[in-house]
C-alpha cells in the first residue's frame, strides 16, 4: 500500500511536506483541516463497518475499527480544544467500549444509536470546517444524544467515567490506516469488502469537491515528466526550428505530453468504491422505511473513474439504488411466498468494458411487470394502446425512461413521484454515457450505467460548415455518408419542406448545420457535395449535413462563458491542432432545435420493417466497378474496410500483388487489371492511390482475408441473387439484380462464406 498525502487546492510549490508553511487564507488552520479530513475518512469507514456489523454482530475486527475511528476523533479533539466534539465522541466511545467488552449485544436499536452518533459527529465536523469553531461550548445540543447513548449503555448520563488520556490515540491513528482493514477483511464473508481499504477515500461534502488524495508515486511521476518537459523546451529553444534534431525533439515533446496527460488522468481517477461506500447506510435506512430486508454486495470498487464523472453519476446511482430497494425488492413475506430467501440482495458491480466503465445495479426482486408498465404508459398517454400491443418486452422496458413515468402504486417519500428513470438517463447521458435496463419476471432487474472514463478529453470528429469548424463527439456518431453533388437530387427526398435521406430503406431527417446556425452558406461552387453525419443522441437519430470532414481529433473540452452557454447548442469549445478554435456541438440540443423528435417506439418498428425488406429482397451488397463499365458486388458483411493505398505500397511476389496490411500479408485480386493501368500513370510521375477492399469472412474470424483492387466504389444497396445453376458456379460468379441493374457477385472469400451466400440465393 502506498502512502497517500492530502492535496488541498493547487499543488503547493513547497512540495508534499511544505503545506505547513503555506499561508492559509481560510479561518481553519492546516492542522485542523487535516484533522477534519482524517476524521471524516474515519467516520466514512465507521459508517460502512456499522452496517456490516448489523449483519455480522460477532465480528470483533469491525467493532475494533469503529472503536478506533471514534477513539481517534476523541483523542485528537482533546488537544485541538474542541470540547463539544470530545464530549460526544467520549460518550460514543464509552458505549463502544462496553460493546467491545461483550457487555452489550448488537441489535438494531444500538446500530441506529451509533449511526445517530455518527451523524452528530459529522455535523460538528462540518460546523468546524465552515466556521472554524464547533459552535456552542455548553454541549447542550448533544445532551440528548449523549443521554441516548448512555441509556443504550444501560447507564444514567452522570455516571460517565473519566476521559482517557488522549495521547495514545495518535499512535493508533497511523496504525489504523493500514492494519485495521486487513483485520476486518480476514475471515469476513465476501459480503461488502469495506471501501475503506483504499487510502484514497474521498472526504464528505464541501471538502470532497476541493481536495483530492493522490498517490505520492503518481505525483512524483508527474514531477519527473514536468522536468522532462522543461528540458525538452530548453533544447528546443536552443536548437531552433532549423536544427537537424528538431523532428526528434518534437517527437519527444509529443511523448512527454502524452505521458503527462495520462499521469494527470490517473491522478484524477478515483475508485468507484468511494461512491459505493455510502450505499450500505442508505440501503439500511431505506430498507427500514420500506419494510424490506436487503443485503448489499459490491464488486469492482477499485475500478477507477474520473473524479468529475464520479460526482456526476452520484445522483443517478443513488436514484437507481433507491428504486431497486423500493420497487425492486419485495417485502420479506412476498419473497418467502415466491420461494426466495426473505432477505433481498442488491449487487453493485463496476467494471471496465471497451473504454468505458460499466456500473450495474442488480436486484433479485420481482422484476419490472411489463403489463403494468404498458398499462401505465397508456394511462399517461405516453403510447397508444395499439402501439403497446405490438411492443416487445425489451421495447416496453424502455418506456420507463420516458419523462413522467412511474409504476409505484403509491407515492412514498422514497420514490414514485414520476421523476425517476428519465432523470437518471438524462444525467448519465449528459456526461456521455448510456443507461440500459434488463428485467426478468420474478428473478430481478439489472440497471446498467455506462459512462466514459473521462470527460476532459473527448474523441471527436471535426467538421466544417459555413466556413467554420465544429467538433462532433465520436460517441454520438453512428456513420458518415458522402453525398456527391451529382447524386444529391436523387438521394434526397422531400416531404413538404423537410428533407429526408434514404439510408438503407430508412428515412433519416436531414438537418443542415449551416442553415440551423444561420451561417452564410459556403461558396456557391459546391461541386464537391456534402457529407451526412448520422448522429444519435437522447433517442434522436438524424443526419447532419456538413460541408466538409476534417480530421478526427482528441479534443480538450474548454467551458464557454455563461452568455454563450445560454445559446444551448454548444457544450464547449476546443483549440484544434492548427491553433484555431472549434465549437463543440451538443448533439441532443441540436436535434431539439431542429425539431427532431426522439423515435423511441418507432425504432423498433422501422428496424423490423428493415429486416422484413431484407428478407424479401436479399442481402446488402457493396457495389463497385473493377472492369470498365461492369458492376460487381460483394456481400457487405464480407467487406471489412475500404482502404485507399498509395500504389507504391503494393508489392509483388511471384507475379502476384500483395499488400502489407496491419502486420498481415494480404493477397490482392485484380480482376480489372487496375494495377497495371495505374502503374503506367505512376511512371508518368503521378502519385496514384489505389482503392482496395479489405475482405474477410466475419463468420470464420477473418482467417482467409484478402484484398480486392477496384476502380471505384459505387454504392451500398440490397439486391436479389439470380440462381443460374451450375454455369455460374464455374465462373466463380453469380449474377444479381441490384437496383434493377445486372450485377456480378463474387463469392470466393472463404468456403463458409460461399455456402452462406448460396443459402441466400
Amino acid at each position: 500500500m502506498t502512502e497517500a498525502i492530502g492535496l488541498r487546492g493547487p499543488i503547493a510549490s513547497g512540495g508534499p511536506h511544505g503545506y505547513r508553511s503555506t499561508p492559509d487564507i481560510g479561518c481553519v488552520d492546516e492542522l485542523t483541516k487535516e484533522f477534519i479530513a482524517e476524521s471524516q475518512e474515519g467516520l466514512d469507514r465507521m459508517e460502512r463497518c456499522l452496517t456490516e456489523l448489523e449483519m455480522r454482530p460477532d465480528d470483533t475486527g469491525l467493532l475494533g475499527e469503529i472503536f478506533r475511528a471514534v477513539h481517534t476523533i476523541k483523542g485528537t479533539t482533546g488537544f485541538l480544544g474542541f470540547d463539544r466534539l470530545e464530549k460526544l465522541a467520549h460518550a460514543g466511545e464509552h458505549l463502544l467500549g462496553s460493546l467491545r467488552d461483550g457487555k452489550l449485544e448488537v441489535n438494531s436499536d444500538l446500530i441506529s444509536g451509533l449511526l445517530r452518533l455518527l451523524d452528530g459527529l459529522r455535523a460538528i465536523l462540518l460546523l468546524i470546517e465552515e466556521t472554524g469553531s464547533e459552535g456552542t461550548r455548553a454541549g447542550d445540543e448533544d445532551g440528548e444524544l449523549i443521554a441516548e447513548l448512555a441509556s443504550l449503555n444501560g447507564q444514567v448520563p452522570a455516571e460517565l467515567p473519566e476521559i482517557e488520556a488522549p495521547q495514545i490515540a495518535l499512535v493508533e491513528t497511523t496504525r489504523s490506516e493500514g492494519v485495521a482493514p486487513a483485520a476486518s477483511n480476514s475471515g469476513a464473508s465476501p459480503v461488502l469488502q469495506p471501501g475503506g481499504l483504499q487510502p484514497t477515500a474521498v472526504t464528505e461534502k464541501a471538502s470532497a469537491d476541493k481536495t483530492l488524495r493522490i498517490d505520492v508515486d503518481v505525483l512524483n511521476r508527474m514531477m519527473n515528466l514536468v522536468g522532462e518537459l522543461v528540458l525538452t523546451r530548453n533544447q528546443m529553444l536552443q536548437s531552433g526550428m532549423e536544427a537537424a534534431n528538431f523532428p526528434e525533439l518534437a517527437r519527444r515533446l509529443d511523448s512527454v505530453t502524452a505521458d503527462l496527460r495520462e499521469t494527470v488522468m490517473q491522478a484524477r481517477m478515483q475508485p468507484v468504491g468511494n461512491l459505493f461506500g455510502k450505499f450500505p447506510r442508505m440501503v439500511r435506512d431505506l430498507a427500514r422505511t420500506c419494510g424490506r430486508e436487503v443485503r448489499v454486495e459490491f464488486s469492482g470498487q477499485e475500478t477507477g473513474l474520473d473524479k468529475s464523472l464520479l460526482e456526476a453519476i452520484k445522483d443517478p446511482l443513488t436514484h437507481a439504488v433507491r428504486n431497486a430497494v423500493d420497487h425492486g425488492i419485495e417485502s420479506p413475506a412476498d419473497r418467502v411466498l415466491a420461494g426466495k430467501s426473505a432477505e433481498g440482495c442488491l449487487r453493485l458491480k463496476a467494471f471496465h468494458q471497451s473504454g468505458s466503465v460499466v456500473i450495474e445495479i442488480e436486484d433479485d426482486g420481482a422484476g419490472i411487470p411489463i403489463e403494468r408498465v404498458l398499462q401505465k404508459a397508456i394511462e399517461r398517454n405516453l403510447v397508444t394502446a395499439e402501439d403497446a400491443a405490438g411492443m416487445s418486452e425489451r421495447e416496453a422496458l424502455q418506456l420507463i425512461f420516458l419523462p413522467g413515468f412511474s409504476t409505484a402504486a403509491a407515492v412514498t417519500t422514497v420514490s414514485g413521484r414520476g421523476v425517476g428513470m428519465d432523470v437518471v438517463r438524462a444525467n448519465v447521458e449528459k456526461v456521455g454515457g448510456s443507461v440500459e435496463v434488463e428485467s426478468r419476471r420474478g428473478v430481478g432487474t439489472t440497471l446498467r450505467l455506462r459512462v466514459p472514463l473521462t470527460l476532459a478529453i473527448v474523441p471527436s470528429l471535426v467538421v466544417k460548415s459555413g466556413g467554420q469548424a465544429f467538433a462532433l463527439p465520436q460517441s454520438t456518431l453512428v456513420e458518415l455518408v458522402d453525398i456527391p453533388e451529382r447524386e444529391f437530387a436523387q438521394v434526397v427526398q422531400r416531404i413538404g419542406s423537410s428533407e429526408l435521406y434514404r439510408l438503407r430503406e430508412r428515412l433519416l431527417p436531414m438537418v443542415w448545420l449551416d442553415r440551423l446556425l444561420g451561417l452564410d452558406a459556403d461558396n456557391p461552387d459546391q461541386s464537391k457535395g456534402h457529407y451526412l453525419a448520422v448522429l444519435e443522441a437522447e433517442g434522436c437519430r438524424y443526419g447532419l449535413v456538413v460541408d466538409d470532414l476534417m480530421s478526427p481529433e482528441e479534443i480538450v473540452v474548454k467551458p464557454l462563458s455563461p452568455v454563450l452557454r445560454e445559446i444551448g447548442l454548444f457544450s464547449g469549445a476546443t483549440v484544434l491542432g492548427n491553433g484555431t478554435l472549434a465549437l463543440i456541438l451538443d448533439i441532443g440540443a441540436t436535434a431539439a432545435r431542429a425539431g427532431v423528435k426522439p423515435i423511441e417506439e418507432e425504432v423498433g418498428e422501422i428496424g423490423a420493417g428493415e429486416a422484413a425488406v431484407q428478407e424479401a429482397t436479399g442481402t446488402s451488397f457493396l457495389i463497385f466497378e473493377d472492369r470498365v463499365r461492369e458492376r460487381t458486388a460483394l456481400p457487405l458483411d464480407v467487406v471489412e474496410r475500404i482502404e485507399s493505398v498509395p500504389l507504391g505500397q503494393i508489392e509483388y511476389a511471384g507475379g502476384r500483388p500483395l499488400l502489407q496490411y496491419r502486420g498481415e500479408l494480404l493477397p490482392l485480386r485484380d480482376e480489372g487489371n487496375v494495377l497495371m493501368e495505374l502503374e503506367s500513370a505512376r511512371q508518368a510521375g503521378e502519385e496514384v492511390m489505389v482503392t482496395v477492399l479489405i475482405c474477410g469472412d466475419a463468420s470464420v474470424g477473418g482467417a482467409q482475408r484478402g484484398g480486392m483492387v477496384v476502380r471505384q466504389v459505387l454504392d451500398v444497396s440490397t439486391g436479389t441473387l439470380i440462381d443460374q445453376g451450375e454455369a455460374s458456379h464455374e465462373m466463380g460468379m453469380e449474377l444479381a439484380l441490384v437496383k434493377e441493374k445486372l450485377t456480378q457477385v463474387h463469392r470466393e472469400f472463404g468456403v463458409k462464406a460461399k455456402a452462406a451466400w448460396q443459402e441466400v440465393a
Partner: protein
Amino acid sequence: MRIAGREKVDEIQDESDAVSLCSMYAGSEMFGIDTRKIREVLGERDLQRVPMSPAFIAGVVPYRGEVLTTVNLRALLGMEAHTGRCCVLVMAEDEAAERFGLVVDAVGGVVTVSRRMLEDNPCTLEAKGKWLFDGAYKMDAGLMVQLDPQRLSPSRLSEVGLFKSSSNGGIDASPDR
C-alpha cells in the same frame, strides 16, 4: 499613433487627481478605459464567430488555456462591422470577476488625464449610450469617452436586454427552423 493628452501631464499637479487610461478607437470615435481594469492587450487576433450568439458578441479567442468570450464595441454602438483586422483587449476587474475580451478597431496608448477633465454623460444621451458611457474627458483632439468594463461584460450586457435586438451585420440571432 499619436498619444493624445500626453502634453497635459505636466498640468496635473495633484497625484490623486491623475488617472491613466488606455485609449482605443471604434470608427472615428475615441474611447478610454482605466488601465488598471485591463489585463492584457492581445493585439490583432482571429476571432472564431459563435453562431446564434447575441449580436454584441464578436466571437471567442483562445487565451491562456481558456476560451475567452469577446464583446464587439462596434456592435454595441450600432456601427457597421469593421473591415480590417480587429484588436482584442482582455478585461478583468480582479481574479474573481468574469474575464472577457473587448474588440476594437485599434488601441492607442496610455493617456494620463486629470479627473477634473471628466464631464458627465449629457442628459440627452439615449438609453444605450447612458449604459455604455461613463462620461467623457475633454481632450485637445476632441472627446475621449470613458467606458466601464464592468458594464461591458457579456453577462451584464445580456442581463440588461438593451442590446438584444440589435443585429447589425452580425449573425441572425433568431432560431432558424
